[in-house]
């Protein structure tokens, strides 16, 4: 396994308060890494560092190194727009644009300047198939994406991201607003996608982490406590705090 993204000594402060106190974490290509930890420990914060979505929050300072394909994503020369195309994000709440499915999925491609209708059609089909919503949407590509169910909307959002062929997919609790069946479908989708992508997922659902993640990282109060193979972490955690958390003693 090769680490596609390496973070070292990541510190982040919102306004005055330091929220991340030095996180070191590597992410492998073609694998799923789960970030777990109690509420408020900084999982979303860390995830948002990875595609610089924290830049949008005023007075936020980030230090540390983020090597993506050997280049620092916080380097002044980094093209943010390109970066976000390569490291895409799926949010907790399904957030399709209030446009048609087709327009949603082609949004990123059109931003990148693709206008060839034939190419767009192809990519829409590929992305929707990869996200496992093709069957539900293929006859309704012109229907408003908001009129689908929550789970379908979330998979449309995943398709919207896959259309731009990112390297890394960040997901922040993508199933927490969904019912168990939709969640299971998303999990299946993610397992299929890991063959092609590096997937990093924040989840509160420990079963979900154990079902789909190759590696799991446990965070607590802005620190990375432990990261390891999921199978090892869930059976023989190295750290007492991890063990307590996995056994539901807190969080």
């Amino acid at each position, binding site marked *: 396994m090769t680490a596609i993204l390496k973070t070292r000594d990541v510190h982040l402060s919102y306004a005055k308060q330091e929220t991340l106190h030095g996180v070191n974490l590597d992410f492998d290509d073609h694998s799923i890494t789960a970030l777990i930890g109690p509420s408020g420990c900084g999982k979303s914060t860390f995830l948002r560092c990875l*595609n610089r*979505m924290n830049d*949008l929050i005023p007075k936020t300072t980030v230090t540390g190194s983020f090597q993506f394909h050997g280049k620092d994503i916080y380097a002044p020369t980094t093209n*943010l*727009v*390109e*970066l*976000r*195309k390569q490291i*895409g*994000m799926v*949010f907790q*709440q399904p*957030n*399709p*644009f*209030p*446009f048609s499915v087709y327009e949603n999925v082609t*949004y*990123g491609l059109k*931003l*990148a300047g693709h206008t060839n209708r034939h190419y767009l059609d192809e990519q829409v089909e590929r992305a929707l198939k990869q996200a496992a919503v093709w069957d539900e949407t293929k006859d309704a590509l012109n229907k*408003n994406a*908001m009129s689908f169910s929550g789970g379908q909307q979330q998979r449309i*959002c995943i398709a*919207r*991201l896959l259309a*731009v062929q990112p390297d890394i997919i960040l997901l922040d609790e993508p199933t927490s607003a969904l019912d168990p069946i939709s969640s299971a479908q998303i999990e299946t989708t993610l397992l299929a996608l890991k063959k092609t992508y590096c997937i990093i997922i924040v989840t509160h659902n420990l079963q979900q982490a154990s079902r789909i993640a190759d590696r799991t990282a446990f965070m607590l109060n802005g620190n990375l406590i432990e990261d390891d193979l999921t199978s090892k972490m869930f059976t023989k955690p190295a750290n007492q705090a991890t063990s307590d958390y996995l056994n539901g003693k807190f969080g």
Partner: protein
Amino acid sequence: MDEIQKKLTAPSKASREDVTGRIISYTCIAAIIILVISILYFITSRGIATFTTNHVSLWQFLSGKEWNPGTLNAKGQPQVGALPMIVTSFSVTILAALVATPFAIAVALFMTDIAPKNGAKFLQPVIELLVGIPSVVYGFIGLTVVVPFIRHLFGGTGSGILAGTIVLFVMVLPTITSLSVDALRAVPTYFRSASLALGATRFQTIYKVLLRAAMPRLLTAVIFGMARAFGEALAVQMVIGNAVLMPRNLVTPTSTLTSQLTTNIGNTIMGTLPNNALWSLALILLLMSLVFNLLIRCIGKRGEIKS
């Protein structure tokens, strides 16, 4: 047992208050409904008197270009052609909205997305101030600044559609801006994050997602602005020239429906044709405000389904 039953069925203080409250609010509603109906009835009955009592044909009224209700023309017909005023009213309204909308949306975007903190802090009071200035003041500024300036540039009197448009532009700007701000704020922030996370720049996010998602409500804002421009009387009257003539270009004196009403309603005698003809103009204004209302409702409904 009987004791409890009595207590339960006897009217308590609270339930009596409830009844009183309801009676008061229904009375108020009834009073207002009666008021609205009588206003509608009054304007309509007066407005159609031109056609029923004075036997002016509707077509002549809407398409005639001569407005001189006191005198008869060569054929012995009264001269009540309202077309110049209708054209002028629509011209100033549409032009003012066309000019004001880009400015209003730009300012609104500045307040909601480009500089949400300082922009809103500084511009909100400015907009509120602009709304609060009485229209006579706008008219006065128009008369002392805009009209001479146009006279200087284009010759003539300086009054006309151009002067009216400029004054109305300033007057509808705050209306359209504050409604546009509401429209843009109503677009959930997660659309913005979704777009940015897909690699869109802020500008792309604004024109590909934000403006599009807010479009129905932005249109509503523009129509509200148009309704205000269409109905504005005093400020327009001061700069439009008040000659009921077909406008030949943007700088010839002309007259809107409202300015004609304010200028002449005090100079006519109830029940005579000149008075009735003015009521007919008022009826047109009423119908137009109805149309604006319907438009706003239709667009609002469509917007709701979308988002």
